[in-house]
């Protein structure tokens, strides 16, 4: 991947970009007004439920007049566009872009739920759950890439770990044993990737692809041979929901954030922990140095290859955790190719999040939201093919990678061999 630097603030490019953004805001506003405002008949209400299954406090549902609400949201977009075109938001432009897109999506939801009801909390809850494997996968990717090794094998690591979690968890009768073995399996594949790409200098993309194919073939074969025959080896059970006292009683956010199983809490701990470790600790400084300029790291006595081995194995273990979520945290059994490309979406989330744990989590939430939105809309029977909605996050990723919304800049030595002379 090539190094792309941010354009200077005063260049023609950024002025053009500011104008384009302003026009985009306006366009979003007018589109929202046309489709979602005038698209819904006047006098209808959109009802948003604010309760989740487990909450004890009963909140009344929020009923909004469809047309007026959509028009209001559209007006906000147009207003933001007008300010961007006349005065400009400067550095806040990307944030404002988020706000405008958010308004557009809300207007869309208002329109989709006209004369109907939609459970807001349920949708956000499922957004969070769907983002868990993507976040963990992205963390795995960025642990590797920050040290300069491209990990395209997240998918294969997740799939293998999911399988291990299911079969070992069932055999041992303990989800904990399953989880540990799943993490170890991920770490083992990480070690394989590390040996291939560092010791044997196999092209990292090729090495990763090989692991993906291997994992898919192996787990499919074994699940057909073993799990299909011995059903009892495919029922590891799931980690129970842990409700955190007091916090889980807060309306709306309580059930969303504080009534989940182990994986969600682990995800939050890892996102914050890796963020601090990467940017505030000695370990992180050295990892980033190795990923940016391995030779410089070597000349100050840092063991470049050691750092890479450690990080890739660590990354594999985090991918293993992501895989275990499928069997032990979510579904409760293994299905063939059950990760369904989430490992690749995780890579996209890592890039979207600019190789930054918090950013990757945010990106994963966007993907998770698109995923859950598509589900919700299928229930509401919105006349838009769900495939188009599912495409939205990928389009967003392409726009980010192409540099439309700011620039994503990978670690400079990402994917490069380090050969000591």
């Amino acid at each position: 991947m090539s190094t792309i630097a941010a354009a200077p603030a005063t260049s023609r490019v950024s002025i053009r970009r500011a104008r384009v953004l302003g026009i985009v805001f306006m366009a979003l506003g007018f589109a929202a007004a046309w489709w979602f405002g005038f698209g819904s008949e006047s006098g209808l209400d959109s009802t948003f439920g604010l309760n989740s299954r487990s909450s004890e406090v009963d909140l009344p549902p929020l009923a909004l007049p469809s047309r007026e609400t959509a028009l209001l949201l559209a007006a906000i977009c147009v207003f933001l566009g007008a300010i961007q075109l006349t005065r400009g938001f400067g550095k806040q432009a990307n944030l404002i872009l988020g706000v405008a897109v958010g308004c557009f999506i809300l207007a869309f939801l208002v329109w989709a739920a006209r004369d109907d009801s939609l459970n807001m909390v349920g949708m956000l809850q499922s957004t969070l759950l769907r983002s868990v494997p993507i976040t963990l996968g992205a963390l795995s990717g960025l642990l590797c890439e920050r040290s300069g090794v491209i990990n395209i094998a997240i998918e294969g690591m997740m799939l293998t770990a999911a399988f291990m979690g299911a079969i070992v968890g069932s055999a041992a009768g303990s989800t904990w044993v399953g989880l540990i073995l799943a993490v170890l399996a991920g770490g083992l594949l990480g070690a394989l990737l590390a040996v291939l790409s560092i010791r044997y200098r196999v092209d990292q993309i090729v090495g990763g692809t090989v692991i993906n194919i291997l994992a898919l073939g192996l787990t499919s074969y074994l699940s057909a041979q073993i799990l299909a025959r011995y059903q009892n080896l495919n029922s590891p059970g799931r980690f129970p929901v842990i409700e955190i006292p007091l916090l889980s009683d807060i309306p709306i956010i309580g059930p969303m954030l504080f009534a989940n199983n182990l994986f969600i809490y682990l995800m939050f701990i890892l996102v914050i922990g890796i963020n601090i470790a990467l940017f505030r600790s000695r370990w992180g400084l050295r990892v980033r140095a190795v990923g940016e300029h391995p030779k410089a790291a070597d000349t100050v006595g840092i063991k470049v290859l050691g750092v890479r081995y450690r990080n890739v194995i660590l990354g594999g273990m985090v991918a293993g955790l992501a895989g275990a979520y499928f069997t032990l945290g979510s579904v409760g059994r293994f299905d063939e190719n059950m990760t369904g490309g989430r490992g690749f979406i995780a890579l996209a989330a890592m890039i979207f999040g600019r190789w930054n744990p918090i950013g990757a989590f945010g990106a994963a939430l966007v993907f998770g939201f698109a995923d859950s939105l598509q589900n919700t809309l299928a229930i509401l029977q919105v006349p838009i093919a769900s495939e188009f909605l599912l495409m939205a996050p990928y389009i967003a990723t392409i726009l980010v990678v192409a540099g439309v919304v700011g620039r994503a800049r990978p670690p400079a030595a990402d994917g490069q061999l380090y050969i000591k002379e």
Partner: protein
Amino acid sequence: MKIELKGITKRFPGVIANKDVDLIVNGGEVHALLGENGAGKSTLMNVLYGLYEPTEGEVLVNGEPVTFKSPGDAIDSAIGMVHQHFMLVPVFTVTENVMLGVEPTQNFGLLDKRKARARLVELSERFGLKVDPDAMVEDLPVGVEQRVEILKALYRKADCLILDEPTAVLTPAEIDDLFEVIETLKAAGVSIIFISHKLKEVMAVADRITVLRRGEVVGSTTPNETNEQQLAEMMVGRSVQLTVDVEQAQPGEKILEVTDLEVLDDRMHRTVKGVSFEVRSGEILAIAGVQGNGQTELIEGITGMRAVETGTVTLDGKDVTGSSSKRLFEMGMAHVPEDRQEDGLVTSFPIKDNLILNTYQNAPYSKGIVMNRDAIDAGADKLVKEYDVRTPSIEVNAAALSGGNQQKVIVAREFSHSNNLLIASQPTRGLDVGSIQYIHGQIVAKRNEGAAVIIVSSELDEILALGDRIAVMYDGKIIGVLDRSEATRERCGMLMAGLSGEGVVRQSATETSAVAEDERPPPPASSAEEETTS
């Protein structure tokens, strides 16, 4: 701190890089290690710094034998190194770069940046190395990056500092600053090993000079006991003429005209900001400037290797702005690119194929879609002889040749046609003295045949020796054009540092005219065309 290298031999497969080298560096001494490129200076220092393990011999620090398995060991013994290519992480701050590897930490391994920063500030004040500890390294000019490298070594309590070709990327003014820093360090008792192939600098800064040639020590001396001529002979192994003889230029008609050219670099920054000049037949325009002031992009823009934003390039009266390299070649342009391994050669191809990269589709090398191997071999044999490429065979891959011979292959390919325009970027970078002389001779010969010539170089000596007119680039613009008769080291140096104010330049020219007389290349047609005699 006293450092001794005793009988160091370093063998690589098929090559002896250092052979039985002895070197003693005393505390508080500036010891210059002089030698041509490939003489083994860097290898020797990499041995001392723990990057290579010596095949034979030992290293003694303060009389104690030591074994360095890695740079970490050398750092522990208070040896620091400033590499020729700086070892800094561009996206880290100065403080982060300096602390990397020896980070002070608080609980849980969290960085104590405040502590590191305080120590950095203290060091930078003590040794007069001004730098903003919070600046991103990628935003700093090279001179400041070098200061960061020195601070990095001092932060590790280095008592011996190895400076590998420290002046290669600096402006004359920055070089003066560096020499002041070296004096301060010396006064504080730090020993310095100063690696260079530039005689003037070594004479100016060193207490003791050791000359290396082909991996062996040729001799050791002090600046008082020797002179540049003598050092050059030690370095090369035979007597050398340090300047090129160039007859008076006889400019003819206008060949190339560049008007208001603007070019963007890879990062989409405007690095050539409206450059205009013309070159006539039979003259050499030398473009001087510190690296990174737009020379690379300017030449790439003219030669069709990079898109031009605005402005025009006119060759022989035809607008060739944005023309392909191929069309320009067909119109008579020869181009020796700056990066010979990346742009000048296909290093994995044999010499004979590299010699026809621009003519492979023409007779006699091709007939229709079939290549004529016999003609290619015959042509290659002839060129290799004519241009003195030292190679066992034309089948040898270009990658296996020395830098000088690689450059000769390019020169053979480009110069063996009738050219009306010749553009050479950094034509002698990294070459040995013999090759430099040869290539300079070829360039001057082309000029005398009536070609318009553009030379880009960051070596002031080369600029002054070859240029009939000298254009100095600074920050993407040509800020001054000097005739051969008015060009001096000082005036060029001022312009290279961006001091274009006419008054400033004039004044310095009069003040330093006495010195300048000596340093200017000999007046045209003074002595005969002897090159090297022994």
